[in-house]
């Protein structure tokens, strides 16, 4: 039975994804695009937390690196496609360089080190000349490929969700391969994994770089879509938001990232609409979104530690609870 249900569900999701951009208006499309971008980054966070067992509070930094790379290149006259492809590469290279020393840390040490990394990068981006300081980079050209120019939001929506499909395919292939099993092993016990011959350090570094690649790709699309990047676009809270989405969706599940990003984005959007009703105080939108992130994170971590996807799918997960 499940043999037919799964492809059918997949086709349905794909069809809905393709139809939606044509039917949504511009403000709804903006939500749709940001949702897709968040899901791309969250897929990386979920892989890193669920499979390599490492917490990164600095995923926003890789997102920022991707955005700045694509922005700087296309402002310098390089074709946008090259800029878009360079974004994930730059993020991955950066992750490999800083991951080599940082991944010697574990648990809360790594969490704080990645947070520190993001704070350092934001502070540098706000001070350096070529990144435009606190004002950031503006007037980034539209994404174009040959004679085709992506001018409408719908084009970016297709770009985002195509990116998400690629990211999910990569994730699927990684976790169902031999390295994927090795990663699951090292998440439970590094010592045991190392003694069964798994190159622990190298695998952790590769997953770290892969999660950075995803974030860099999302950052690249983001900069073409908004046409503007600044340090203020990548606050620490954005990294926490990815953790919330990954935890809510279910760590280490492929669909968890999408479900988590969708649930949180729609919840926050709905509350935003509620908060901007007449008669609500001006601070209502930010207060409500902080409160939602916080409460959802706390409740899910304490009472649904494996997230929505495993909790909702009836088939009991054979993987031991972590």
């Amino acid at each position: 039975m499940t043999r037919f249900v799964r492809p059918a569900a997949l086709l349905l999701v794909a069809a809905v994804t393709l139809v939606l951009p044509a039917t949504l208006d511009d403000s709804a499309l903006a939500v749709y695009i940001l949702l897709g971008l968040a899901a791309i980054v969250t897929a990386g966070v979920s892989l890193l937390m669920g499979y390599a067992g490492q917490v990164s509070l600095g995923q926003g930094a890789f997102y920022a690196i991707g955005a700045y790379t694509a922005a700087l290149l296309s402002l310098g006259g390089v074709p946008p496609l090259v800029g878009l492809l360079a974004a994930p590469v730059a993020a991955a290279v950066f992750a490999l360089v800083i991951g080599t020393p940082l991944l010697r840390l574990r648990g809360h040490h790594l969490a704080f080190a990645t947070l520190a990394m993001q704070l350092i990068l934001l502070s540098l981006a706000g001070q350096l000349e070529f990144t435009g300081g606190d004002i950031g980079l503006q007037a980034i050209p539209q994404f174009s490929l040959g004679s085709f120019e992506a001018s409408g939001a719908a084009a970016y929506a297709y770009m985002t969700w195509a990116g998400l499909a690629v990211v999910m395919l990569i994730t699927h292939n990684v976790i169902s391969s031999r390295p994927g099993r090795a990663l699951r092993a090292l998440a439970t016990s590094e010592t045991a994994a190392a003694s069964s011959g798994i190159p622990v350090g190298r695998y952790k570094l590769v997953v770290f770089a892969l999660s950075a690649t995803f974030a860099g790709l999302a950052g690249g699309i983001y900069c073409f879509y908004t046409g503007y990047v600044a340090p203020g676009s990548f606050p620490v809270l954005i990294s926490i938001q990815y953790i919330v989405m990954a935890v809510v969706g279910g760590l280490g599940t492929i669909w968890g990232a999408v479900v988590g990003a969708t649930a949180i984005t729609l919840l926050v959007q709905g509350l935003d609409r509620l908060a901007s009703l007449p008669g609500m105080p001006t601070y209502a939108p930010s207060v409500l979104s902080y409160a939602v992130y916080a409460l959802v994170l706390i409740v899910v971590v304490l009472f649904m530690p494996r997230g929505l996807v495993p909790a909702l799918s009836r088939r009991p997960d054979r993987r031991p609870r972590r």
Partner: protein
Amino acid sequence: MSAFLSYLLNGLAVGCAIALIASGLVTIHRVTGVVNFAQGTFAVVAGLCTSSLLGLGFPHGLSELAAVLAAAVAGLLTGLAAIGKRGTTPLASLIVTLGVGVLAYAVEIVLWGDQPRSAPGLAGSVTVAGAHIQTQHLLVIGVTAATFVLLALFFGRTYLGKALTACASNPYAARVVGIDVRRMGLLAFALGGLLGGIAGVLVTPLRPISFDTDVTLIVNGFAAAVFGALTRPVIALFGALLLGVAETMAAGYGYGSHQLEVALGLMIIVMIVQAGRRSAISEETV
């Protein structure tokens, strides 16, 4: 020379505030194994409370005391969320405290708005060997020294303090001799809130506090705490003083825009050096 002396004393004052945050982190981590991400929040809550109470016309002393107690209550509530449920792993607790910190943003904005607030402290300055020192800085140093002495007496001389130390060194053995480890954990959180509150009350007159100041505070406090491997308060104190002096000197001698990078870079290096000395096994069994 007088500029150097005034930078040094200012730096020591900044370092003392960091040390109070760090000591709260260390207290909680020793007893419960949880790194409390909401530690900076306690300072922010206390700072904002002081400014409000003083604004309402309450006298000095009473306002500060009430603010510190409010921070201790915040600590207790954080503890209930983080370790109140049995079987929560330390890393899950870290994420919960992260959530508490964000939740506090919402509460703080509702109560105090999103603009930075300040509070009047001790006015005036004294001249020591040709250097002008703000009296508030001397107050910060004095209160911190007193707090650390009291902490040492509490952990070394009282029954409750010894029970906390017992939980820190061996939770299982502590339970065997009849100590309620969970209650001690909550007590540690309340104590951490108290210490964070003292830091907040002392810092607010020096630099304005807003709801998102907690990130700077917690990062600096954590940087100091890792000097003592999150378990030794005295080494954390020295780490904090070093950090405070280094940051103030950097600012004073014209590298002010890079003081955050200096502190964070130092923290990462210290952690990596320490990680090189620990084996994976010892960390996984803890």
